[in-house]
Structures are given as structure tokens and as C-alpha cells.
């Protein structure tokens, strides 16, 4: 029995006005996040202890609550788009030319950062986002970084700029809570640190080039 089962029991048989989001109940649609005993969890994957202890369920922190467990994710959706999460190229390849070759090890470079299900547990856990809602945040940064690592993409420079603008990656203080709570083993904290390094190297390069 999972927390989601309990929520469904309550809304089906006790109080139909209880509002919460869910769909796949298999940990991949990302809609059922909530705080379970204070920790951000997918309710479909959070077991109810068989010992019968009380379980406290709250809406995800750091988002405006619309009703019960339903929080407003409009701002998160806007941030996803802000990092230009699509392949950027000088010249688009024609369909007739077939696929880009991408070796398994090239896929592996970005694969984990592409496993994010947009459940926003990382935003609920992030102390920087709690203090400043403008902060780009872990999931959006990891997504931008995923495209930067993709061998098919040529937009890294443009995206690094977007990722490090005001309230960007440099605001991250590397607490690492985002990676701890991620139900899909994505490491957004690592993505944020690497973005900082990549951005620093890029600006260093442009300074030294200017110096020559």
C-alpha cells in the first residue's frame, strides 16, 4: 500500500473534494509529488509503513498551493522552456541523410540528465529556490545541461548564457538536496556545478582570446 492508494481511498469513499494529481501510478508521469512526513516523494512510490504509524501528507513546498495537494507549476513550465530544450544546429540535417551517429558512450554522457520526469521534488527540496523563486532551479538546469552534452547539439554556448543569467546556475550553493530527493537518480546538483565550470571556462577562453 502506497500513500497514493490511501489518497484514492479517501477521495473515493470518504471525501470526494480531496484534490491531488496522479495518473500512471508507476513513477514515470511525475504528477503525484507531495511531502510525505516532511520529505518530497512521489506518493505512488512512497509506501505506507505496515506498523500503522501516522503519515503526514502535505503539498510540495516552495510552490503556491491551489487546493489541497495541487500546486501551481506554471512558473516551472516557463523555466523549462527558458533553457531552450531542443537541438540547436547551424544546419539542420535532412531526413534523407538518416540518423546522426551517436555512440553508446556519447549517449551515456547525457543520458541520466535526460531521465527527469518533471516531478519537481527537487524544487521542493532546494533551499536556494525557497529563498528566491526566480532561481532557475535543479530540473530546468539539468535539462539545459542534458542538451549541452548531446553530441547532436551545437547550442551549448547560447544555452550556457541562458543558464547562468540572473538567478541562474551560479546562485546554486551546492547543498545537493535536489539530487538526494530525485526519484529517478538524476544528479541535478552535478549538472549545476558543471554548468558553472563550463561557463567559467567559456568566459576565460573569451578573455584570453581577447588578450591575444
Amino acid at each position: 500500500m502506497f500513500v497514493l492508494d490511501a489518497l484514492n481511498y479517501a477521495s473515493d469513499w470518504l471525501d470526494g473534494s480531496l484534490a491531488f494529481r496522479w495518473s500512471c501510478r508507476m513513477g514515470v508521469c511525475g504528477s503525484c509529488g507531495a511531502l510525505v512526513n516532511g520529505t518530497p516523494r512521489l506518493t505512488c512510490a512512497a509506501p505506507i509503513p505496515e506498523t500503522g504509524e501516522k503519515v503526514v501528507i502535505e503539498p510540495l513546498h516552495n510552490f503556491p498551493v491551489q487546493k489541497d495537494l495541487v500546486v501551481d507549476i506554471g512558473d516551472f513550465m516557463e523555466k523549462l522552456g527558458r533553457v531552450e530544450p531542443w537541438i540547436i544546429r547551424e544546419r539542420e540535417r535532412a531526413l534523407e541523410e538518416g540518423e546522426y551517429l551517436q555512440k553508446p558512450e556519447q549517449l551515456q554522457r547525457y543520458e541520466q540528465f535526460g531521465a527527469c520526469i518533471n516531478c519537481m521534488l527537487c524544487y521542493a527540496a532546494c533551499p536556494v529556490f525557497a529563498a528566491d523563486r526566480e532561481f532557475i532551479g535543479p530540473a530546468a538546469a539539468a535539462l539545459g545541461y542534458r542538451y549541452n552534452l548531446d553530441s547532436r547539439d551545437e547550442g551549448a554556448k547560447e544555452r550556457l548564457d541562458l543558464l547562468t543569467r540572473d538567478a541562474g546556475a551560479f546562485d546554486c550553493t551546492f547543498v545537493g538536496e535536489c539530487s538526494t530527493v530525485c526519484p529517478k537518480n538524476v544528479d541535478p546538483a552535478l549538472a549545476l556545478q558543471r554548468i558553472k565550470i563550463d561557463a567559467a571556462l567559456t568566459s576565460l577562453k573569451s578573455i584570453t582570446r581577447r588578450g591575444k
Partner: protein
Amino acid sequence: MVEKFSHDIAIVGAGAAGLRAAIAAATFSDKLSIGLLSKVYPMRSHTVSAEGGTAAVLKDYDSMDLHALDTIKGSDYLADQDAVELFVREAPSEVIQLEHWGCPWSREEGGKLAARAFGGMSVKRTLFAADKTGFHLLHTLLQHSLKYPSIVRYDEWFVLSLAVEGGAVKGLVALDLRTSELAFVSASAVIVATGGAGRIYQFTTNGVIKTGDGMAIAYRAGVPLKDMEFVQFHPTALPGTGILITEASRGEGGYLKNKDGERFLSRYTPEKMELGPRDILSRALVQEIREGRGFEGPFGAYLLLDLRHLGEEVIDSRLPFVRELALNYAKIDPVNEPIPVRPAQHYTMGGIHTDVNGRTPLPGVYSCGEAACVTINGANRLGSNSLSECLVFGRRAGQDAASFALSRREKGHNPGGDRPVSSKQYVSLAEEGMNSLLKKEGGQERLAEIREGLQSLMETKVGIFRESKGLREALREIRELKGRLLSAKVDDRGRTFNMELVHAFELDFMLDVAEAVAHSALTREESRGAHFRTDFPRRDDTSFLVHQLSYHTPQGPRLEKLAVNLTRWQPTERKY
């Protein structure tokens, strides 16, 4: 004051088919304004749960004819062969398109797309992104769609009805879940891409959102539903929850075993074994259980899916999600233990009647994806053809709707078409329906009681095995449930995220869809593909090599027959 919105094209549903249609329309012309409405945020759409892969001919050893033949044979010869031929020709470029847009397909050593074996496919032609192919396709499509400012999203908007005037669609009525306000969205073309109706069954791999909304909306607007009796049961779902364990686990070499440790499929699909088609395999599992060779568990009888011989490395690289699901939801590590499995409803082969351009008989109304029935799937869909179908026919519907909407503009119509004089009427009709729920005094039954009643009768009487008596009972009971829904109880009288209101509308849609399924199942007095009648156990090409179209009437479905399009492949006995 009812809010009014206007687009050239309104797309209902933002899974793979809806998003692909939206991108196709946006790239067709940047003059077009596209409204994309979904009752959930796009990345929650059920495409996300598709695991195994996407079929397309991309390897030298494969051929278009072979993919076509596999699909047609899989369909038990009910697929329209012209549609299948077109589908197999266009699937490869769609897979490449998704690759160019960034989909993280799994690769061969040299960097080309990797292909795996799948049920009913005679060669390895299923392209995949580990065992999260649907998840990656959906996110790639959503992320790519963000490039196009002409795609305007209405996330968490629930569409209630289509507005039809003068024999053409004029728009739709939708409910904004945040406020329960109704809005009229006018559009020259409406594309219905709301997916299937798996939730009319008790045991289903489908997410809770799969309630057949778009099918019911189109049906009520006068568009026929086609071949609704064909419901796919997937052989391997976790008992209790119905969580899908992908066919890719058998494509990668997994075994199905009974209580005696026997690979029992040798008695059902001796040539293909675990890679037989889903309809035959699901019946085989039920047969094994009936003959006492299943295991008994807390959630009923089950069989075993054994992956142990594949080894940890293969499981982790090719089937990581299967391992995660088995660990989380069955407390089983497939590296060390076989996974308990049983059949569960998985896919709705039937759906909104369309041609290969997604057009329905009602001008301006289109459909694609699982909501639609073109039909390339006929009586039984082959695994991994559905994601390709979403892409191929999503694009075709998007392009055709775009060209239709542009020509409407050129003829001097306003962008988004003309607001019909009846728009107020449509909205007030919806308002009435909503108020009758929100303002009702008393009320008796809980919605869940009626929903569970439906799911359990569909499971027992319109399931894997069917017969006349049960189907007649099912139809009578569905009509009773419709009556009971009218006097159901609603706790939530509020307007903010009133999910109970949405569930009441969904249940109303589910009952209409379920009625069409049971009715078509009763009239098809033969066994073909996923439709097995114990009282008519043979296929009957003389009387039933036809599609059945269901038209909505207040008394229940009215049926018409439609010939199957055969091009080069004559029906023969189907053996694996």
C-alpha cells in the same frame, strides 16, 4: 461572462499524437494559431508509460512488405491494407525525425539506432530508448514543441463537447480546472488525440486519465466509432496494480513459465514462443491458469516472467525500468527472482473512425493516436506499432488540418473560423450539466461505486473471453449504471480543482464508450484477434471481414458495416 478563445486548429490531448500534430501544423504554416488543450500537463500524458519501442523499417535485413505483412497478419486481417502500406512507408522517417529532435534512442556500437525483437514482428525492427521509449518520445516532443510560439497550450483544461453547426465543427467547450469556468474555443479544425479508454476495465496498464473522453465527445457529435469490440490485453502486467512489464523483456530473451517450470507457450505459439502476438499470448496465460498451472497470490492467479538468465548487465542496460518497477511495486529483483505477471487491459484498437489523413466523416474533425481507428491495428495491434502510429498519423492529421484551416482563411473566414450562433447554446448546455452536479441536493451513490461497477462488469463480461449471455447482461447493466450516475452524490461543491466534477464527466464518457464496446462485441459473432467469442470460436471471413461503425443514438449504438480494404494480402489462417 463566458471566456472566448479562437484558434485555427484546436488539438485535444497532448500526448505523442497531439504534440506531433501540433508541431506538424506549426511547421506547415507559421500563420496558423494552434490551441493545444489537455486535461493534464503534456508530460503526464499516458504516452509516458510506453516502454518497449517504436517499430520502423530502418535495417538492411528488413523490408516494407515484411513490416506490412507482420502488421496485417497481427491484425487478423482486419487492418486496412492501404493504410498499413502507407504507415510502414512513413514510419522510418518519423523515427529519424525524432532522432534529429533529440530523442535519446539506444544505439549500436557504431552509433546507429539499435533495434530489438518484438512480438509478432519477424525481424528486429523495434527502435527503443532503453525501456522508457514512450517517456523519451513524449518529453522530446514536448521540449521541441516549446520552440513554436504559435502553439498555445491550455494545460489542465478538460474538453466537454464539440460544437457542430451546418454540418461542420465550429469549436469546442472546455472547462478550466483551476476555476471550473467554461470557455468556448472556436476553431476551423479540431484534432482529437485523447488516447484510449483502458480505465473502463478493472485491471489495466493504463493511467487513470485514460477514460476515453475524446472518443465519447466525437461519438456524441455524430462521428462514428469503429471496431470498438477489439480491446487489447497485454500478457504481462503486475498482479494487483496492473503495472506494465514491457514486451521488450521477452524481446530481450525473457521466458514465460507456469507452476511446473514449463515454458508453456510451446503448446500455443510453438514457432514464436514468447514473441507471439499479444492476443494469443494473453489467452494462453488465462488458459494455463484455468487448467490449474498458475500460482495463487493475494491478487489472484498469476504466472512467471523469468529474466534471470539474461544477467544483471543486460537487465540494467536494456530493461532498467522493468527492474525498478519490479523492485518498487512487487518487491522482486528480476536479477534473482522471476516476476509474477497476469494479463491486463492495455490498448483500445477501436476508436474514432478516420481515414489515413486523420479525417473523420464530420468536416473539420480529425483524430489520431490511440483515440483514432484508421485502422492499421485491426483486431490486434502488434507491440511497438502504436508509438509509430502516433507519429505517422499525428503528423498527417496535423498537416491536413493545417491545410484545411488555411483554405478556410483564404475563403475569407476569420482565423479560427466563424463563431457559430449556437456557441452560447453549447456552453449553456455544458453549464447545465455541471450545475446539475454541483447544485444537486441529496444524491445517493458515490461515483466510485458506479465506476467500480462498470470496471468489474467489463472485466468479467467483456474481457478476454466473451459470450452472448454475458454481453447482453453487460449492456443491460451499463444502461442501469447510466441511470445510477444521474443520481450519484457529489461532495465537492467548490469551483477550484473540483476533481470530483471531472471524474463525474469522465465516468459519463466511459459509460458511452463501454456501451459501444459491449454492443459491437455482441454483434460480432466470430472470433478474430483480441475478440474471442466462446460461442463463436472461429474466424468467419464470409460474414465478418468487415469493420463495424457505431453511431450514437439516445437508445444506444446504431451499427453500420464497412468493407476492409485488402490490397495484396489475402486472409489466411493465422499461426505463430
